[in-house]
């Protein structure tokens, strides 16, 4: 029964759709009878919950939680009521959810519980390149590692069954290249009936006091062998014996290898953890030389080294890069350097050198830019701890960015050591996520700092998910939580709200805060420019009167993508959204609203 949906004969008659892998994972969860879904947005994982939210008349529950820890705990609650649940996050989100995650394997689950942690090799949109497989190992939780979008969909369906069968949470660990790949995906029916949750009291399981933990840990250890046995028989692992040299691989790297590996070289693909070490040992014993090619940490390679005395080549010998992501060209070169002739040869082409770079930037009319620019003017030479969000793209007033919510506490830490003013910036969603404890701590321990909450009324960077301060949740309108009231309750000495589109008022508010003591909060509130454009339509843009322009460059320093240098004078291009901040900054009054539109 466990493998019935994996039967390849079922494949032939299925309808296919061109789907993003994250959409396919959402679809697969529903086909598996999903009842309950939670998550916090984070690239590359956000589209799973986004997709679930688009199903109307749904017979399952879905929420954007305020952070990954509460997301996982909500999903645990549902699972303990017997419901099939998924909790979706990016790899660094798992750090936030690590506390429940690490103990959850002990208590185990009732309804199937899948924890999706999306890793980001390179990293494209993250602060680090940690490997979630390490977490699964540390927590003694099985982990599935897809190599294609279709396999990711098959895996999520299998994960629910495996989770229920062994009463253990299962991790699905796709990477960016899998999450954001779009492919032809097979579609199955979604069951119509839904389960009703019922919590069955069982203190020996659900109350994790030391006496119970001892026994539960024994049970958890005992489960491992049976889990490995089940995983070992899935089509997610396979091998081909074809010669004296072998390549062992996982994830997207195994897809690249299937394209490049020549006849006569053996191949093993690992898609599930814990690895079946007996099978791995048997495979390695047939080969003199083994290449291990994987992304992120040498997790596979360590396992191979544990069981094999053959010559092993991988990250630990310096042959496979320890950071970044792999691609066909890199894998091609690894094979060639190690005496394996790739099946396909690519033409040597070098990128053009010295081209102007085009890094991502804040949008024209973004509310972060005037806020940060004003901070830099009013608090010149001071210290600006910041946080995770679009604002890190700004060239102004960003001195630190470590992890979600860290700005507030790093800021208060600095304020206890430094003479200069500390002006912290954090987005509304990030503040709700993990900024609040930092503010309580700052007030409690008498820190001296200014906290500016960049309230753009959304979680912009990950695709505009709602936040608790907006009166909207994933299902529609809801209770609106007041940032002002929260900050006051956390002990802030001053709470003031200002619209940064009124640049003069923004600066005045900052001056007032500068003159006071204690923990001072300014809420800079204006909707994200992308959302506002959708709601209100286009505003009349601005232009530069060439006769009055003195070419001082102040408007260009502001850093709006709508202002560019053309020949030797600034011009305003079509990106202008009419916010008008630049017209206030221009000391010669040369920036004026366009006429006749």
């Amino acid at each position, binding site marked *: 029964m466990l493998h019935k949906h994996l039967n390849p004969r079922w494949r032939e008659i299925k309808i*296919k*759709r*061109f789907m*993003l892998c994250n959409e396919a994972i959402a679809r697969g969860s529903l086909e598996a009878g999903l009842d309950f879904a939670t998550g916090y947005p984070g*690239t*590359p994982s*956000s*589209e799973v919950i986004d997709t679930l939210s688009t199903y109307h008349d749904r017979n399952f529950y879905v929420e954007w939680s305020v952070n990954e820890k509460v997301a996982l705990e909500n999903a645990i609650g549902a699972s303990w009521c017997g419901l099939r649940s998924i909790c979706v996050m990016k790899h660094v989100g798992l750090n936030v959810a690590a506390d429940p995650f690490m103990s959850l394997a002990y208590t185990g689950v009732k309804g199937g519980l899948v924890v999706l942690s999306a890793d980001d090799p390179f990293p*494209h*949109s993250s602060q680090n390149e940690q490997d979630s497989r390490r977490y699964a190992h540390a927590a003694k939780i099985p982990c599935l590692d897809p190599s*294609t*979008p*279709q396999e990711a969909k098959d895996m999520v369906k299998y994960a629910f069954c495996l989770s229920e069968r062994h009463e253990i949470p299962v991790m699905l660990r796709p990477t960016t*290249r899998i999450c*954001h*790949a*779009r*492919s*032809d995906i097979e579609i199955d029916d979604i069951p119509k009936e839904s389960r009703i949750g019922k919590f069955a009291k069982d203190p020996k399981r659900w109350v994790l006091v030391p006496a119970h933990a001892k026994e539960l840990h024994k049970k958890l250890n005992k489960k491992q062998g049976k889990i490995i046995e089940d995983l070992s028989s899935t089509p997610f692992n396979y091998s081909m014996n074809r010669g004296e040299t072998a390549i062992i691989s996982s994830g*997207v790297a195994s*897809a*690249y290898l*299937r*394209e490049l590996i020549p006849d006569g070289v053996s191949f093993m693909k690992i898609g599930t953890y814990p690895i079946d070490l007996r099978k791995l040992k048997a495979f390695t014993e047939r080969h003199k030389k083994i290449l291990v090619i994987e992304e992120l940490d040498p997790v596979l390679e360590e396992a191979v080294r544990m069981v094999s005395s053959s010559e092993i080549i991988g990250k630990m010998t310096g042959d496979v890069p320890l950071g970044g992501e792999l*691609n*066909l*060209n890199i894998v*091609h070169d690894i094979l060639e350097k190690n005496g394996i002739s790739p099946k*396909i040869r*690519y*033409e*040597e*082409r*070098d*990128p*053009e050198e*010295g*081209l*102007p*770079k*085009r*890094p*991502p*930037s*804040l*949008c024209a009319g973004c509310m972060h830019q005037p806020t940060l620019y004003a901070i830099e003017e009013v608090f010149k030479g001071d210290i600006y701890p910041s946080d995770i969000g*679009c604002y890190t*793209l700004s*060239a102004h007033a960003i001195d630190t960015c470590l992890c979600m919510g860290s700005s507030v506490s790093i800021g208060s830490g600095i304020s206890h050591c430094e003479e200069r003013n500390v002006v912290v910036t954090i987005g509304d969603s990030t503040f709700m996520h993990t900024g609040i404890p930092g503010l309580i701590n700052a007030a409690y321990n008498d820190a001296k700092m200014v906290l500016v909450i960049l309230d753009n009324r959304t979680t912009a*960077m*990950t*695709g505009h998910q709602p936040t608790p301060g907006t009166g909207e949740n994933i299902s529609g309108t809801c209770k609106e939580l007041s940032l002002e009231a929260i900050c006051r309750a956390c002990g802030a000495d001053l709470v003031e709200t200002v619209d940064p589109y009124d640049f003069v008022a923004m600066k005045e508010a900052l001056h007032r805060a500068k003159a006071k003591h204690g923990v001072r909060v300014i809420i800079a509130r204006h909707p994200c420019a992308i959302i506002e454009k959708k709601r209100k339509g286009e505003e009349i843009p601005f232009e530069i009167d060439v006769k009055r322009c003195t070419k001082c460059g102040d408007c*260009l320093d502001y*850093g709006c*993508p709508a202002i*560019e*240098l*053309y020949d030797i004078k600034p011009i305003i291009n079509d990106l202008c959204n009419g916010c008008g901040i630049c017209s206030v900054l221009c000391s010669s009054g040369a920036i004026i609203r366009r006429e006749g539109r």
Partner: protein
Amino acid sequence: MSFDLVIVGVGGQGTILSARIIGEACIIEGRHVISAETHGMAQRGGSVENHVRIDGNLGPLVPIGGADMLISLEPLEAIRYGHYLKKDGILISNTVPIVPPTVYRAGTLYPDTDSLLLSKFNHAKICNANILATEAGNVLAANIVLIGLASPHLPFEEENLIEGIRRSVPPKTMEINMRAFELGKIHNEEMC
């Protein structure tokens, strides 16, 4: 073997939509396809790349020196990603520059893309897609102009490519998009 396509441009120009159209055409013709998209942080006005592997079902990334076609919505990006093309691969590019803010801040120069496009590529089909899209009814349809320009070199029946467009764009924009497709296609014929 897959037909490998790379679609590049500036975040917000519609590269993801262009890749989706190709993917939908594959579904219509019952062919395997896998594509890689740029999401998240990199989208905000940055340089973006989308890879599409028609008849491909393995890794989503097109190798450097392996693309059969490069479609670029902006000329500087065509040059930036030119090394993805095979020597005999085809470049399809818009000629309208979007000057990145770094040109001002780092004091670099925006290169003479018009002559670079023609000198760097063996097979280049270029046009001012913005003018043609405006003629069709909306400058935002520049990506569809380029798909029209590329259409005779793409491995699809034209009607299936058009159905791919229909499935991917908002219904009320279909008329403009059809005109944009035709103008791109005619431009190709004029160049030949």
